[in-house]
């Protein structure tokens, strides 16, 4: 398992494609080395390139999740009295086989694979799931007539029926360069390609993985590839985009920025690119920064543009943004480059003009987009030693000799390079192919051959990009033309050179190995046609790679990335530095275990019987004081300044305890409140834009739903207090170190992670420990969801759907120093969106406008409309967050939107819909802005699949081997069901994903103690997975389980034997009638309403996040509740006990398999009578005891 990493792609002057990982130190050769490339353009999930045959190829990374596409067609039948339902339809009817609308004839055999890169997954089969409900056998739905609404029940008047057939095809050409096959009309076929750039994935999220792929042909025309997305990685057709003049090169940013360079030396900027128009509308022209030297190369990011002019100078464009994609002016930067590339996060790389090294622009930050300095990447190639003198590199080298300048006309005439056969070509190329490899020639040192070779090398290293310049200048200034002519004159036989290009590629595959003896014989030929043209500098032996092209479009570097690219490492260390979570040998080493064990034995031996002895050193009382603000608990509630003091003292048993005093003024009278920290159950940061505030709860405060709220002047001050108070609480409860395997984990709406050690009495029947007494402590990191089992395997999912695995550490975040473990704490980041709403009202004069009625909400507001939220005044959720995007319109709002993102309604507040009707007088649209948090905690990323849900099997036996595989199921954020292989206690991250096929996207999954896997599909239906076992980790097939009373389900949790589901209306259901022989059960029993989330544990205990819980002072939304009275004979339990609350999002109790010991019922307090009325009671919805 690797650290989160991304790749920088580059092509060396021999056309070999390499990648450099952000966590690596060496360039790695692309897995597929069949082809040589001229240019590549990468994004995270794939790379597109132009090979030396001028064809376009795409390289899609392999992954555990297949790329599959569902084909569907409908079989239609009509009833007649003679034959019953049959395929004889009326003449006016639709075809017997059609699409869903009935308008298109679609027979099963009319479906063909779109390209050789696809394969069928299985044969056609009937879909039996209609709207989340299983149909009767055969999958038929019935209607009175076509087209109509179909029901799954056959009625007396059902005259027609239809059923859906589905078949999946799968994209198979992954981790290889797949040639883009063109289905276009032959005479419309684009000519050979010269440049390519991909990006635009930020423009819209539908369909998933949509990409803008732009290409430039040798004739200078611009083409746009239609319909490139996750399910269609090759796209469908090329569309010609007209340009004002001939284009040489193009660059497409992640968002709406697209620039291209013209032969004449200007740049053109595409305007009007947006969600509805990913191709943009028109071009506008930007002049070159210098009048003498035109622009040769341009590269764009999210909101930056860099260019290189023909004199190799590098320029940065000022003032570029979505509204003004042209920017305002050029600034000259230091350095001379062949080209530059802008990657993710606006980071920049370039290829040095003199040394052909790749440089990274250091210091590019949101506030300083142009960065500070160029720094050379000195990483060597993994293959350096082994590949010196490889014949492949030589052969491909020759294809760069000639390239674009002279042979373009020829290439166009030839049309398709595949057509040129060996026979057309003279024998020269073969000989040329046998020219000595650079490494060999250069190493021959002082003799004439060596020198020659060195010069050749010098020449060819400049050539590929020089040729661009040459092309670009053909039609421009006269002095440059002279230059081109000079070049031409030095190349005596241009057409022959073209042929080399073609044949070399073929030959390279045919004769991969050349004998050394041929080198000497043919070495003189190597200078043929090449040895000349003004390359003054001499290049020595190939010590560092010489690069021709670089693409950073898939490479994510930020402030926090420690890059290892800038130092050469001696020694023979491996190329990829992967950080593995499987515990390092040092940690499992016997010596370490023995030290731990002996120390605890020593403590026992020397201390256990002598605890009553006096301590030699007296512990004095220790006090920390300070000034904070306190949310006063009388009306009107407001923040008032208070003095606070934390007094720590050592008890007679040597343990420390602490009291927090808060001194305040009440009607000019000095008063104070105090809290014993051993009574505090949680200290939690409160999300507050304006204040650095936190809340302290005790069991009593939890019942009141009214914590002590304190605020500090600065974030640092708050974290100092939080850290100290947390440590004091843990000390007084004698809790230290990492959470146990039984720990209960939870996550708040702020993304903070809390963990609680379950008391054995937590699940005891007779003397139940009230859950408001549970002590929660924070663990660093930021997550949306967390799941664990009782073996200490814990996984989490971030707001950006990144999967994380727990490393076994503790602390992190603000918990620093000794309260945090030294190892196992890593950087973690997360991204989420902040939303604001733009509201408008219709008036007869101006139509919709931002002039509302006096009674209306703010024209820019939050979702409720109560708070004014403008683009300017809206801040990230807390100072820990920083913006990482600009405001953009969000089209994924529930209810749908029109093309501009508006949703309409009759009036505020109302339900909104995505199209305007006569009755609509108001409209709103949602704007989103991404922000990012960087923190740290005991978490390591599990790349690359992003997840939506996870479930880990609770283990039944307690004496299991820590190498035994642990079943872990997950749902990807695209809805794929996945099964993780190789998860063990030693390697909790596992090794790879196994994809489990489904007919639709899924949203929830849970695996019970005996491998019962239940899952919920996006349409709200439940499924049971049959035959899952350790030997068959993915099981065999899905059984569709009807949902309770037509409710749409959203979550499932399976404990030891109990199965509970939650529907979208907050109802909790129990599955009745489950037996070992009939694991699907029979019916759903309603248990409770008012539930947001639930977790069923290995003791079949039921814990939930309740929607609303009323306390004596206030109400809390998102509250941890525990089902009481759950017993083997009464799995549904009796009532709810209320725990910590106010902003809780998720809980998992799947680690807690500790049953209470029946004998010793010691020192827990008397039973708390607070446990109360049931949430189930419809009348008192969201209301509880006082």
């Amino acid at each position: 398992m690797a650290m989160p990493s991304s790749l920088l792609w580059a092509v060396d002057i021999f056309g070999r494609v390499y990648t450099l990982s952000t966590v690596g130190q060496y360039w790695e050769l692309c897995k597929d080395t069949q082809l040589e490339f001229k240019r590549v353009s990468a994004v995270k999930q794939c790379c597109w390139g132009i090979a030396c045959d001028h064809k376009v190829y795409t390289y899609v990374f392999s992954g555990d999740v297949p790329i599959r596409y569902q084909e569907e067609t409908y079989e239609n039948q009509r009833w007649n009295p003679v034959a019953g339902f049959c395929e004889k339809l009326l003449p006016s009817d639709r075809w017997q086989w059609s699409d869903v609308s009935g308008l298109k004839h679609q027979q099963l055999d009319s479906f063909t694979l779109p390209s050789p890169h696809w394969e069928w997954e299985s044969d056609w089969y009937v879909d039996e799931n209609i709207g989340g409900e299983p149909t009767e056998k055969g999958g038929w739905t019935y209607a009175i007539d076509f087209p109509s609404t179909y029901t799954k029940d056959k009625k007396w008047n059902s005259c027609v029926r239809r059923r859906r057939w589905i078949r999946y095809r799968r994209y198979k050409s992954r981790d290889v360069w797949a040639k883009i096959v063109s289905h276009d009309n032959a005479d419309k076929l684009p000519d050979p390609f010269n440049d390519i750039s991909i990006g635009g994935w930020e423009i819209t999220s539908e369909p998933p993985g949509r990409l803008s792929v732009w290409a430039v042909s040798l004739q200078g025309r611009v083409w746009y590839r239609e319909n490139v997305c996750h399910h269609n990685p090759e796209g469908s057709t090329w569309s010609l985009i007209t340009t004002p003049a001939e284009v040489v090169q193009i660059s497409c940013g992640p968002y709406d920025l697209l620039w291209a360079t013209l032969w004449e030396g200007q740049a053109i900027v595409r305007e009007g690119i947006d969600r509805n128009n990913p191709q943009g509308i028109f071009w506008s022209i930007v002049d070159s920064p210098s009048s003498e030297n035109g622009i040769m190369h341009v590269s764009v990011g999210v909101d930056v543009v860099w260019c290189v002019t023909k004199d190799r100078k590098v320029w940065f464009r000022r003032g570029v943004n979505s509204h003004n994609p042209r920017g305002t002016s050029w600034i000259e930067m230091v350095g001379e480059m062949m080209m530059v590339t802008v990657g993710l996060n606006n980071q920049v790389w370039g290829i040095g003009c003199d040394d052909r090294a790749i440089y990274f622009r250091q210091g590019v930050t949101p506030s300083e987009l142009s960065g500070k300095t160029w720094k050379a990447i000195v990483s060597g190639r993994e293959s350096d030693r082994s590949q010196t003198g490889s014949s492949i590199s030589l052969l491909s080298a020759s294809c760069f000799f000639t390239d674009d300048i002279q042979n373009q006309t020829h290439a166009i005439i030839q049309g398709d390079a595949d057509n040129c056969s060996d026979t057309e070509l003279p024998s020269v190329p073969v000989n040329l192919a046998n020219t000595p490899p650079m490494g060999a020639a250069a190493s021959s040192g002082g003799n004439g051959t060596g020198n020659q070779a060195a010069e050749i090398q010098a020449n060819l290293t400049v050539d590929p990009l020089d040729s661009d310049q040459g092309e670009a200048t053909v039609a421009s200034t006269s002095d440059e033309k002279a230059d081109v002519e000079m070049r031409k004159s030095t190349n005596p036989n241009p057409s022959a050179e073209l042929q080399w290009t073609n044949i070399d590629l073929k030959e390279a595959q045919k004769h991969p190995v050349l004998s050394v003896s041929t080198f000497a014989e043919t070495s003189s030929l190597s200078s043929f046609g090449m040895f000349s043209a003004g390359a003054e500098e001499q290049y020595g032996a190939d010590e560092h790679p010489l690069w021709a092209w670089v693409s950073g479009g898939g490479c994510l570097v930020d402030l926090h990335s420690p890059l290892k690219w800038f130092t050469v490492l001696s020694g023979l260390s491996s190329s990829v530095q992967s950080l593995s979570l499987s515990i390092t040998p040092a940690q499992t080493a016997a010596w370490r275990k023995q030290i731990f064990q002996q120390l605890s034995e020593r403590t026992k031996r020397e201390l256990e019987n002598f605890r009553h002895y006096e301590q030699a050193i007296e512990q004095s009382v220790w006090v920390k004081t300070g000034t904070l603000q306190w949310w006063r608990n009388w009306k009107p509630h407001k923040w008032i300044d208070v003095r606070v003091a934390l007094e720590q003292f050592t008890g007679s048993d040597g343990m420390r305890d602490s009291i927090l005093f808060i001194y305040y003024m009440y009607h000019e009278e000095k008063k104070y409140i105090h809290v014993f920290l051993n009574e505090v159950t949680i200290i939690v940061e409160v999300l507050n834009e304006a204040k650095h505030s936190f809340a302290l709860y005790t069991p009593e405060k939890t019942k009141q739903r009214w914590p002590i709220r304190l605020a500090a002047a600065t974030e640092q001050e708050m974290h100092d207090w939080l850290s100290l108070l947390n440590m004091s609480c843990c000390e007084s409860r004698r809790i230290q170190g990492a959470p146990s395997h039984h720990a209960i984990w939870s996550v708040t709406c702020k993304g903070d992670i809390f963990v609680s050690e379950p008391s054995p009495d937590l699940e005891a029947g007779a003397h139940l420990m009230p859950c408001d007494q549970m002590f929660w402590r924070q663990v660093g990191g930021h997550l949306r969801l967390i799941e664990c089992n009782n073996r200490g395997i814990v996984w989490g999912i971030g707001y950006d759907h990144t999967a994380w695995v727990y490393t076994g550490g503790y602390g992190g975040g603000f918990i620093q120093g000794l309260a945090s473990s030294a190892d196992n704490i890593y950087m973690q980041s997360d991204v989420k969106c902040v939303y604001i709403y733009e509201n408008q009202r219709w008036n007869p004069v101006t139509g919709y406008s931002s002039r509302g009625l006096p009674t209306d909400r703010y024209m820019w507001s939050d979702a409720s409309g109560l708070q004014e939220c403008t683009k300017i005044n809206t801040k990230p959720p807390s100072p820990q967050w920083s913006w990482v995007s600009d405001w953009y319109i969000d089209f994924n709002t529930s209810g749908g939107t029109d093309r501009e993102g508006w949703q309409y309604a009759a009036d505020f507040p109302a339900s909104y819909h995505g199209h305007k009707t006569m009755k609509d007088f108001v409209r709103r649209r949602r704007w989103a802005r991404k922000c990012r948090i960087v923190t740290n905690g005991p978490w390591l990323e599990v790349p690359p699949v992003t997840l939506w849900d996870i479930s880990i099997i609770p283990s039944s036996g307690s004496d299991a081997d820590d190498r035994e595989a642990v079943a872990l199921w997950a749902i990807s954020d695209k809805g794929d069901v996945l099964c993780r292989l190789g998860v063990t206690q030693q390697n909790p991250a596992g090794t790879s994903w196994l994809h489990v096929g489904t007919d639709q996207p899924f949203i929830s999954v849970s695996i019970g103690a005996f491998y019962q896997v239940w899952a919920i599909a996006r349409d709200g239906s439940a499924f049971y997975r049959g035959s899952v076992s350790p030997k068959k980790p993915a099981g065999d097939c899905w059984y569709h389980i009807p949902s309770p009373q037509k409710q749409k389900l959203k979550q499932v949790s399976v404990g030891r034997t109990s199965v509970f589901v939650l529907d979208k209306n907050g109802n909790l259901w129990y599955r009745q009638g489950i037996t070992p022989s009939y694991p699907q059960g029979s019916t759903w029993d309603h248990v409770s309403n008012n539930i947001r989330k639930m977790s069923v544990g290995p003791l079949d205990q039921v814990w939930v996040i309740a929607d609303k819980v009323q306390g004596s002072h206030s109400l809390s939304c998102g509250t941890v509740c525990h089902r009481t009275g759950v017993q083997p004979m009464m799995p549904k339990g009796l009532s709810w006990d209320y725990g910590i609350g106010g902003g809780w999002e998720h809980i998992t109790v799947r680690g807690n398999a500790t049953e209470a010991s029946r004998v010793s019922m010691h020192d827990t307090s008397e039973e708390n009578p607070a446990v109360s009325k049931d949430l189930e009671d419809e009348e008192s919805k969201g209301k509880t005891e006082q």
Partner: protein
Amino acid sequence: MTDDKDVLRDVWFGRIPTCFTLYQDEITEREAEPYYLLLPRISYLTLVTDKVKKHFQKVMRQEEVSEIWFEYEGTPLKWHYPIGLLFDLHASNTALPWSITVHFKNFPEKDLLHCHSKDVIEAHFMACIKEADALKHKSQVINEMQKKDHKQLWMGLQNDKFEQFWAINRKLMEYPPEDNGFRYIPFRIYQATTERPFIQKLFRPIASGGQLHTLEDLLKDVCPSAIAPEDGEQKTQVMIHGIEPMLETPIQWLSEHMSYPDNFLHISIIPRPTD
């Protein structure tokens, strides 16, 4: 316990239950009750025995009281050795509590240093830390610290404040990542059976080939007698903080985690009890 931090904590909070009795020849006004105390392993006898001194002084005639010193089974206990070391060296494998005899007369000048005030202990402690840092970092870290940081180390030890001490000591335990360890390991090896006070030599944590040196490497190098011959029986115990780390434990790790507050790894070599 799974984290290395816990080792620091366990080392710091190590306690030896001790029974102090007054030497029989000391003249008292009434009978002296024994005094029981939990002594911190990482501290110094004269730093933590104020209560003991007070307790016995109560029963003695004022004129009989001179400088206090301690003895165990005839061996005067050097106050400038950490308590844990004294115990491991002289009294491990004996029944607890550790029985120490208290003397007020006949100070053994040739065996013990005088300790008239806590300042003497502080000076000794700081001298050790400085020497250790000279070995580890050519004194760079300790010299960059401020006076108050030095004070905090001492106060941390004196008041048994783990966090206070480690907040500063952490810096003394760091090293440049490219070095993989300290320059030299500050260690002292004590042998119960020899007259020589201790062995101290220059020893690097990393071998020239890059592999980590282990406790075994150290002993082979500086005290080969502590290691059993190839086929022979292990006749000695190698003790640090009352435990016997395995000989393959990396010495760098030991230095970082099991040094005493004076930053030295004090290793006791004692005869293995025969039973």
